[in-house]
């Protein structure tokens, strides 16, 4: 067992509602893996479990074979796992550059040295700034570095969020609905970027997404959950022809 990210029998309930019921899944190293399911299937809850914003009632999550359910949310990035959010969660009152720099927070070094602008932390700061600018260039954000992110168009904000996640130099990223609310042009642009992040940076990706054509073209492997439980998993072509999946999405009659 050497999946990059692996969860086993994850169970979460809110009062009487079981949001996740013994969900298990594997994300293989270097792959783009999709997590899909009808509304209310428990995808977001599972994502929050993986990024430690949600405690489990039962089960365990392993990141490179290391159990992580005992860690705090802010410790996850130290293990190289970053995430984005469903409805964009940027630092709106700050510039694109600062948003990316906050993403690089874990590379800062000693906060007290940093606060007093000691020479060592000035060097780190200069390096992080250069890297942030490069990252912005590679995501076509170079013209927006000094602009407040709240003034940017939606598709660009999505890219800023991705840049922020990448700034931490993760080796796995969880993307929560990366193209939700994007128009066709923005979607194809983000699709290309996700492909590049995976191929050029060699970063493993787990994404939740409702846009099926995007999931089918971008993902190497797909997990389907329904009513908080595993329903199916396989390659995109397996999933497209899977009877259970078709029934779950379209109803029994089809």
């Amino acid at each position: 067992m050497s999946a990059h990210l692996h969860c086993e029998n994850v169970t979460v309930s809110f009062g009487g509602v079981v949001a996740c019921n013994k969900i298990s899944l594997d994300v293989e190293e270097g792959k783009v893996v999709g997590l899909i399911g009808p509304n209310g299937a428990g995808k977001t809850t599972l994502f929050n479990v993986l990024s430690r914003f949600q405690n489990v009632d039962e089960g365990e999550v392993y990141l490179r074979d290391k159990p992580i359910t005992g860690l705090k949310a802010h410790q996850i990035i130290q293990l190289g796992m970053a995430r984005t959010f469903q409805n964009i969660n940027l630092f709106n009152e700050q510039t694109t550059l600062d948003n990316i720099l906050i993403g690089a927070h874990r590379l800062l070094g000693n906060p007290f040295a940093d606060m007093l602008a000691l020479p060592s932390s000035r060097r780190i700061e200069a390096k992080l700034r250069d890297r942030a600018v490069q990252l912005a260039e590679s995501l076509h954000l170079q013209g927006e570095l000094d602009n407040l992110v709240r003034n940017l168009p939606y598709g660009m904000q999505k890219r800023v969020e991705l840049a922020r996640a990448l700034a931490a130099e993760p080796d796995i990223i969880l993307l929560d609905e990366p193209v939700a609310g994007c128009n066709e042009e923005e979607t194809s642009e983000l699709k290309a970027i996700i492909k590049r992040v995976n191929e050029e940076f060699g970063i493993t990706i787990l994404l939740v997404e409702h846009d099926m054509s995007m999931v089918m073209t971008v993902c190497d492997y797909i997990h389907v959950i329904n009513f908080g439980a595993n329903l199916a998993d396989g390659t995109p072509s397996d999933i497209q022809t899977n009877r259970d999946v078709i029934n779950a999405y379209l109803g029994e009659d089809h």
Partner: protein
Amino acid sequence: MAEQNTIQTRTDKLKQKFGRQNWLAAGVLFLAALAFPIFPGVEGWMASQASLIILYIIAAQGVSVLTGYTGLVTVGHGGFLAIGAYTSALLTKYFAVDLLVGIIAGGLMAAFIGFLLGLIFLRLSGAFMAIGTLGFAFFIGTVANNVPIFQGREGISLPPNRILGLEIEDLGFYYVSLFTIGLITLFIYGIVRSGVGRAFMALRDSERAAESAGINRVFYRTLAFSISAFITGVAGVLNAHIVNYVSAEVYADIWYSVDFLVATVVGGSAVLMGPFIGGIFVVMVPFFFETLADFAYILKGVVLIAVLLMAPAGIADLLARPFRALRRRQLEQAETGSTNEAKP
């Protein structure tokens, strides 16, 4: 690629120039403040009034670290003012310490209590934080009133101020205040531009996103509380020594806390110059409208509401807007200028 580089260097040079202009403006202001007592028409009492303004500004700077940059509204910083004041007063009374020692000790004691308060209030935010900090100020006021060592309403009288062994009067005290505020302003400037400042602002704008970027909420919140309390604690020390007297009558007064918050919000809570404008405003309103007495509070309230409605980022931000627009235009010109050159 060559094109890219010309854009970079041109705008970078311009940004460096803007940076130099900022430092120059700050330097000129500081020199003017240094020379203030020898300006024609300046009388002796003005030095002490100026010191009062400075300590209000420092107190508001403390509030701005917590409320402006970290997003935690405090209506209790009068409590930290009192802690700084009493710490230095007791040290001066019983151990005859130097004012410099008093300033550092008062700040550190406030920082320590601020750290504890940050831990206690870890889960509070918004209006709950405001009410919690208000309760803290009342608590400190009650302690000052009732614990014998603080001598309640009778108060503690202090000997004349000595700094580095030298006895100082109003003018000397003004320079002590001036250097203190200079250092504190540099300190805040450094924090705001550092990764620590970014972490504070990240927590303010989105706790979740901040945590997923690896920002330790407990650490940075308590750090913000400590720094904020330290700064206002230092203002408290100055407040004790400007009149050589501390008393529960003064420090149990909740209006200090309100004044500091008003100063921060009116001036601009997340702008370096904000507390300066707000501090001057809060001190000078009762000064110019002495006949208004308590109605001065109404005036402050009206201005507060007007600012919140019309310029929520504060007066300093409002004043900075035209300059920012001008610089932005210059930057844009530099960018398009160099692209045009590069394109045949």
